[in-house]
């Protein structure tokens, strides 16, 4: 019996042709299905595509009525498009590459309401959203109090139970580990030995004759030396970065301990049966839920973009992906296309009836979106501008993702003037308000370099009228309502810092401060007095140790950077001499170096 089944070979060819015809006939629905599923996997929410048509002959793909839901605000779309016209290279498609020289994204609208929920059945909040929620959304806090029944909070301070002191313990441990680790890792002695070696070689360059053979030997030695010195300089630079990064982490731990001290004080007041009247807690109570949704959306997409545009090296270091998915590596030759490239997409659209019935026209450009930034060599850039005719709302969004070299960097800047605030709800039914009228100016600037996030988002609201919704017992209700009613403008600033897996967020607003002052009057200073006593007691245990750790961290940084600074200066000097001094003397006039 033969191993080859010739009859089946004919059958296989027939099946293959039938499958091919079916794929050609049903390519558009299949691609639409694939894009919807890929989009949903990326967005973590529903994606709708009204229609899709592909033409391989012309190399075009047209989609209409595209809507991507917002995972963190499921009754709204993140964006929707009336039409997307994409040209692609069929030749590149044969190499499993998607190369889009031009695209036109028409009818863009942001944040439009949905008729149905955009939540996916199995969708859960990601780690980042949980981190944001935990830090910005309000803690379960009791706002109704009977101060006359409160205990003495200061008497309850127990050093063993203070989380802030445990935070300092962690910071101390991290500091000592960092010191030991860095001292071993930096290899200062090894580099010093190599600097000595280089010095000896530079002296060799200055000696010897000037015949052709010796000049050639010197030229080669000089080239080798330059390469060696540059390598050493890179090592020193890496060491400096390691020092900054590791000690930055220690400082982050200290900042965390500061937050814990704040929480300790609030916790002690709450345990004693007192309201915390803490401006930050009240800010979180009033603005936290709305802010958490917006910030979760922003950090989710920033993180997504960073992961997708990460370099090959970073991809190799990423944690294992979901089962059956894997990670794609690219192996392009120089001057070839990456697996995915969107060279240029023009964006047009509008935000309808934003303020006083005015539409805001949107216009933008998206360039250089690629799966392999080092190969493409240019950063991805997005600009989106909007302005209403005859003045009014205006926005400018600018985003840059530069992963062309290590460490990758991302920067997102947003300015939005004339943001309508009417109808925005603050807080909950116990202590809240709804905004009537008013406009806001939003300024955001978020940057990520390597693993380190940094940024602020600020909203300045003016011309607002707050309609209070307060259900507190006793005089507190009246004072809180009065405080809220009196507000005509407020500002809120959200700060982001730290690594992605340990993102630190802060939220500050004069709104919380105003309500805290109002409520404080309701309790006639009784809470303020207790707070001052608790803070004094906690600070007595905390402040000196905190200061000591800060000084130790500063001293360690100085100690570690001093030899690196010296080495950097020495190497820069040696590099100069390797190029000019040694060879300048050796070479005859008019002789050009081969490097």
């Amino acid at each position, binding site marked *: 019996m033969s*191993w080859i089944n010739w009859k089946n070979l004919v059958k296989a060819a027939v*099946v293959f042709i039938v499958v091919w015809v079916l794929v050609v006939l049903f390519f558009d629905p299949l691609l639409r299905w694939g894009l919807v599923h890929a989009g949903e996997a990326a967005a973590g929410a529903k994606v709708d595509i009204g229609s899709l048509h592909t033409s391989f002959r012309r190399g075009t793909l047209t989609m209409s009525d595209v809507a991507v839901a917002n995972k963190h605000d499921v009754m709204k779309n993140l964006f929707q498009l009336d039409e997307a016209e994409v040209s692609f290279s069929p030749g590149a498609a*044969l*190499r499993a590459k998607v190369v889009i020289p031009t695209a036109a994204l028409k009818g863009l609208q942001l944040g439009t309401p949905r008729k149905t929920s955009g939540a996916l059945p199995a969708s859960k909040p990601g780690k980042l959203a949980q981190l944001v929620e935990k830090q910005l959304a309000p803690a379960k806090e009791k706002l109704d109090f009977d101060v006359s029944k409160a205990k003495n909070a200061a008497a309850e301070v127990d050093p063993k139970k203070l989380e802030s002191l445990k935070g300092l313990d962690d910071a101390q441990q991290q500091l000592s580990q960092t010191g030991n680790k860095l001292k071993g890792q930096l290899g200062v002695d090894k580099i010093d030995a190599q600097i000595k070696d280089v010095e000896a070689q530079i002296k060799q360059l200055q000696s010897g004759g000037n015949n052709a053979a010796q000049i050639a030997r010197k030229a080669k030695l000089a080239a080798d030396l330059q390469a060696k010195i540059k390598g050493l300089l890179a090592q020193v630079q890496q060491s400096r970065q390691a020092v900054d990064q590791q000690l930055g982490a220690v400082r982050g731990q200290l900042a965390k301990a500061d937050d814990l001290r704040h929480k300790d004080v609030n916790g002690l007041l709450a345990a004693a049966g007192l309201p915390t009247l803490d401006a930050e807690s009240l800010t979180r109570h009033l603005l936290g839920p709305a802010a958490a949704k917006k910030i979760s959306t922003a950090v989710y997409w920033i993180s997504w973009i960073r992961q997708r545009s990460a370099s090959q090296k970073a991809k*190799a270091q990423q944690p294992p992906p979901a089962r*059956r998915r894997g990670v794609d590596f*690219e192996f392009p030759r120089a001057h070839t296309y990456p697996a995915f490239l969107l060279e240029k997409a023009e964006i047009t659209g509008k935000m309808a009836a934003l303020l006083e019935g005015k539409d805001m026209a949107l216009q933008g450009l998206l360039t250089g979106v690629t799966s392999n930034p080092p190969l493409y060599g240019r950063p991805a850039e997005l600009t989106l501008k909007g302005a209403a005719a005859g003045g009014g709302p205006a926005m400018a969004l600018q985003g840059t993702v530069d992963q062309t070299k290590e460490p990758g960097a991302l920067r997102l800047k947003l300015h939005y003037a004339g943001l309508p605030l009417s109808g925005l709800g603050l807080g909950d039914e116990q202590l809240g308000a709804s905004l009537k009228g008013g406009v806001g100016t939003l300024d955001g600037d978020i940057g990520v370099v390597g693993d380190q996030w940094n940024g602020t988002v600020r909203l300045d609201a003016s011309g607002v009228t707050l309609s209070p919704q307060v259900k507190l017992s006793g005089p507190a209700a009246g004072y809180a309502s009065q405080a809220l009613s009196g507000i005509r403008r407020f500002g809120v600033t959200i700060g982001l810092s730290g690594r992605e897996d340990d993102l630190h967020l802060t939220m500050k607003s004069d709104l919380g401060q105003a309500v805290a002052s109002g409520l404080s009057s309701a309790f006639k200073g009784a809470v303020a007095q207790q707070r001052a006593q608790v803070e004094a007691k906690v600070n007595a245990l905390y402040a000196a140790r905190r200061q000591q750790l800060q000084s130790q961290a500063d001293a360690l940084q100085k100690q570690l950077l001093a030899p690196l600074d010296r080495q950097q200066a020495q190497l820069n000097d040696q590099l100069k001499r390797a190029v000019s001094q040694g060879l300048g003397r050796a070479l005859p006039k008019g002789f050009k170096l081969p490097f």
Partner: protein
Amino acid sequence: MRLPFLSSLRSVVLALHGGSDPRHLAAGFALGAALGLVPKGNLFALVFFLLFFVFNVDSGMAALSAVVFTAVGYLIDPAAHAVGRALLTAGFLRPLWTALYDLPVVPLTRFNNTVVLGNLVIGLLLYPFLYYAALRAVRAYHERYKERVERWKIVQAFKGWGWYQSYHRWLGR
């Protein structure tokens, strides 16, 4: 309704009792395992599928094995990802991957995906072991259990069906 899994199972039972070449059964098992391990939706899966047609392997056994090894593939995915990543990041293999990546059509196999490559390599490494293990198992089955199992009513029922007679006649041609 004929479920594909049950249909494959019945086909395997009949092949074991209908005089199919044990080598074809074993090859079907090993090839089905390789297909099952590799994630679908790329050209490798299509190539394996075509191999079923081209080679004289038992298609029932191959289909059954593919179903079982798809589940196995899901379980060993982390290991396959690690194998694939190690191969794709190995410096000495880079020229090979670059050459393959530059060819038309070949990248459609998604060989540059860690899970696809890892499972493919595991499938190919397992192929000879699975082939010989299946061959021994089929031969042992024929020697020790075939006669006893043939007396089972369900097998008798299978063999009594008209299409089994046609199948047997087709084998004898």
